Each structure stands twice: as structure tokens, then as C-alpha cells.
């Protein structure tokens, strides 16, 4: 069993003309690697009709609808996060309710608002009500603002997590760029923040630092945009850790985090 907690598929209304090939490649590579379930999000139209990290309400709903359709096409292999833009509070909460009814199993917050912003509180309350983990896009140690996103870092996510101790948060892509050492120090003592290992970064020492910071119990395997780096990190972990610990990271931690029955072996 191997659960990718940070996957994306591209919908037909995205700017990518190769969206079908991309999605097919993800599924095929996942099969080769042994990925059992891709837990994915679709961020609106990924920039086609509103910005990826600031999606309009219409694009948010479209993306979530498209993902549910994709999940119906691949019922054994795909699960979905509800993506929302917390700037549209009522829409976001309604979208969560709609998604849960349709079988979505988590909440994805991109970067439409800083992670410590009070506007995130209503969606976190909704996540708690539905027992959804919250995957939050993170720029590891953001030292300045960057175009196209309200990127948050681990310190900001921890502020949110401390306000919502009954909600599980997933710090996105520790290998996704930025200073991961800073993030690991920030999350060390915040027990409801889990670390997703995805991202294109495969830095030497990063995985050891992750284990040191939060232990195997708070690590989740994922790939994000690069399955090759995800597989590499998994192979490295298989040499670094006892097999039982690797199983926790491969899927058991995720199975505990997501709602009961979310995955086939649950």
C-alpha cells in the first residue's frame, strides 16, 4: 500500500493542452511505483480563467467537480481534496459540504490567504466537523512576498494549527523549495502538523532531518509534481528506516489521518 497525499491532475479547462497525457503519465508512473491511491486536488483552472492560487468561485467549483468526475473514472486509484478559496467564506464552506457529500476526503488550501489569517478559521471549523485533514500549500521559510501567491510558511501554518488543535494539518511539500530546515524547526513541537515529503527537492540530509524533527509518526509520503523525486525519497527511506517505520510513512499515517473508509484497505 502506498498513498500519495499530494497529487494533482489537470482538467480540460486548464492551460495545458497536454492535460490528458499528463494525467495518464501520472497514473502510469504511479502504477509502476506501486502507488495505490493518489489523493489529488485541482486548483480551479490552474490559471486559465483565474489565478492558480487565487481561483474564482466558479473555477473552484469547476475544479472540484472535474476532480470528482475523474475519481469516478478511476475509483480505485483517485481520491480528492476539496480545494477552496477562503476569501469567499460562504462559498468555501458550502463547497466543503458539497465535496464531502460526494466523497472527497480532505481540504486543500492553496495560497489565497496567509495560513495564519482569521479568514481560514471558518473553513477549519468545517474541516473539523467533517474530520478532514487540511493540506496547506507552504513556501518553506518565505522571506518575502512572491508573485501569484499569498505563500505561507511553517510558522504561519503552526499559528493556525494552534488555533485548531483538533484539526490535522499537512505542511505541503517539504522538498518543494525554500528552507526546509526552518520549517522543520517550526513544526517540531506542534503535534497536529504533519509533514508531506513531496516536492522536487531531494537534498541530502533532508529526510534524516524530517525524521529527527517530527518522527516517523508525522511523516506522509507524497510526490506533488515529480513522481521521480517521490520514488527516490521512498527508496532512500527504505534504506534509512526499519520496514515498519517505512510502512507508517507509505500509508498507515495517512490512513489514520483521513476519514475512516477513505482508502481501500481501511
Amino acid at each position, binding site marked *: 500500500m502506498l498513498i500519495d497525499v499530494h497529487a494533482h491532475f489537470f482538467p480540460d479547462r486548464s492551460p495545458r493542452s497536454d492535460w490528458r497525457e499528463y494525467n495518464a503519465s501520472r497514473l502510469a508512473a504511479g502504477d509502476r511505483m506501486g502507488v495505490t491511491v493518489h489523493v489529488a486536488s485541482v486548483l480551479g483552472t490552474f490559471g486559465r480563467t483565474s489565478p492558480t492560487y487565487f481561483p474564482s468561485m466558479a473555477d473552484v467549483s469547476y475544479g472540484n467537480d472535474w476532480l470528482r468526475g475523474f475519481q469516478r473514472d478511476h475509483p480505485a486509484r483517485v481520491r480528492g481534496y476539496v480545494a477552496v478559496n477562503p476569501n469567499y467564506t460562504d462559498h468555501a464552506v458550502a463547497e466543503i459540504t458539497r465535496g464531502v457529500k460526494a466523497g472527497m476526503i480532505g481540504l486543500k488550501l492553496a495560497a489565497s490567504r496567509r495560513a495564519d489569517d482569521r479568514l481560514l478559521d471558518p473553513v477549519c471549523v468545517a474541516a473539523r466537523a467533517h474530520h478532514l485533514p487540511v493540506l496547506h500549500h507552504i513556501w518553506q521559510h518565505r*522571506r518575502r512576498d512572491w508573485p501569484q501567491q499569498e505563500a505561507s510558511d511553517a510558522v504561519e501554518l503552526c499559528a493556525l494549527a494552534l488555533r485548531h488543535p483538533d484539526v490535522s494539518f499537512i505542511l505541503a511539500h517539504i522538498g518543494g523549495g525554500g528552507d*526546509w*530546515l526552518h520549517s522543520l524547526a517550526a513544526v517540531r513541537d506542534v503535534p497536529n502538523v504533519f509533514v508531506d515529503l513531496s516536492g522536487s*527537492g*531531494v537534498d541530502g540530509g533532508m529526510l534524516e532531518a524530517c525524521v529527527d524533527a517530527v518522527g516517523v509518526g508525522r511523516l506522509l509520503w507524497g510526490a506533488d509534481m515529480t513522481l521521480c523525486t517521490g*520514488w*527516490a525519497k521512498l*527508496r532512500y527511506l527504505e534504506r534509512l528506516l526499519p520496514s515498519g517505520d517505512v510502512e507508517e510513512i507509505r500509508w498507515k499515517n495517512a490512513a489514520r489521518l483521513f476519514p475512516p473508509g477513505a482508502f481501500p484497505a481501511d
Partner: protein
Amino acid sequence: MRVDVNTFLGAYPWRRVPGTTPGHLVQAMDRVGITEAWVSHLPGLWWKDPTEGNDWLYETAVAHARLKPVPTVHPGLPHWEEVLAEAATRGAPAVRCDPQFLGLVPTGHEMRVLAATCGSAGVPLLMSVRLEDLRQRHPLDTAPDLPAAAVRGLIRADADVRLIVTHADRGFIEEVHFGCTPAEAERLWWDISWIWGPPEDHLATLLATIGPARFLFGTGQPLRIPEHAVAKLDLLDLPADARAAIEAGNARRLVAG
């Protein structure tokens, strides 16, 4: 047979990196089935005189037969031609010069003369585009990435120069490869350490559009875990001869001249 053309020994100045000793490197090579590694002296890349790390590198290579030295040449220092000559005498598979870390203009006179002299000496010249993602570097690590225009300029500087470029991504490689004549492009080799596999499939695309002959197996270890380079090859449906060429054959032919 697997030859890693992109490895380092010694401490990294910007953060603690495990596994930087020769013994650790050999262990990592064994772990992922790497037969031979081309190694550079990592801290020396930023020294005023980076060639001060070369003697240690040569001694290390003598003590560890699977490690082949890639010494640094600094064309802004006096007597750099002797450093290059020594590398050729000692059978180094390549020499390296990373202009962005040495404060050299990538397409300046010194780099062009170095490229031409390497061409005359029959020694490939290796350089990296980067060692770390720009977004995660130490605040004082402000060296820019090597520009693609610099590689195009250097390959045109001399008809005999052969360049090995590490840590380049798909966009960089395409910009240089298709910005060169076929004859120029045949004197360029790219390591696969920074090229994405699926689902973006950058490596598969490059192998289809450029061909496997231009690519070398490289990891960037210990700054990066070597499992990545192996994993991305394992995710390809690559004919055995093409994979063997990337993993060792192209490097062997490059060294043979």
C-alpha cells in the same frame, strides 16, 4: 556499469550535509549500484584559490580507485595552465570551472581562453548551472545560476572544446541544444540530475527530441540523494542500449575522446 559524473567530497559551506567523506560516498555508490564516480572538491568551489583542494582530491582518488578526480581550474589565477596540464597528466576525466562561484564572467575572456585551452588539451570542461534551488539558498549565497547563453558562448569559443553541464533543467538544455549547430551540440553533454521525470516527463521528452547520446548519468550527491537519478531512469521505457549509454557508455566515449 554506472558512472556518476556529478559528485562531490568535502563540506558544503551553506549547511550541514551528511555523507561527504570518501568512505561515505563509496557506501552511497554501493547502495545504488554506481561503479565509478567523478568527484570534485566541494568546499574548494568557493575558495579564493580553488586549486588548493586539488592535491587532496588526487590523493583521495589514488586511495579509492572508483573515484576519478575532476579538479578545479581557475583561469583568473596565475599558472592555471599548469593546473590543467597536471589534470591531463593525472588522467582526470574532466576539469571543472564554475564561473558563478568564482566571480568570473561566464562568457568573459578568461572563460573563453580556458575553454579553448581545454579543447586544445583534449580535456572536457565541466560546469554546473547551480547546486541548489534558488529558493532555498543561504541568504548570503547569492551566486546566480549559470546562464544558458554562457554555455552557447563557450561552445562557440573553440571548435575543439567539449563541455559537460550539470544541474541543467529541460528548458536550459533545449535553449542551448537547439541554439547550437549540430556540430556544436555534439560537443555538449548534459547530466540528468536536474531533469524531471513523470508526470512532466522532461527526461523522456529530451531523450526523444535530442537523443540519448548527449546525456550522462549524474546525481549531485551528496548534496542530493543519488536514488533520484536511478529512479527517473527506472520510470522510463528505455531500450537497454540507450540506458547503458546514459549510465556509462557516453561517459566512456567522452573520456576516450
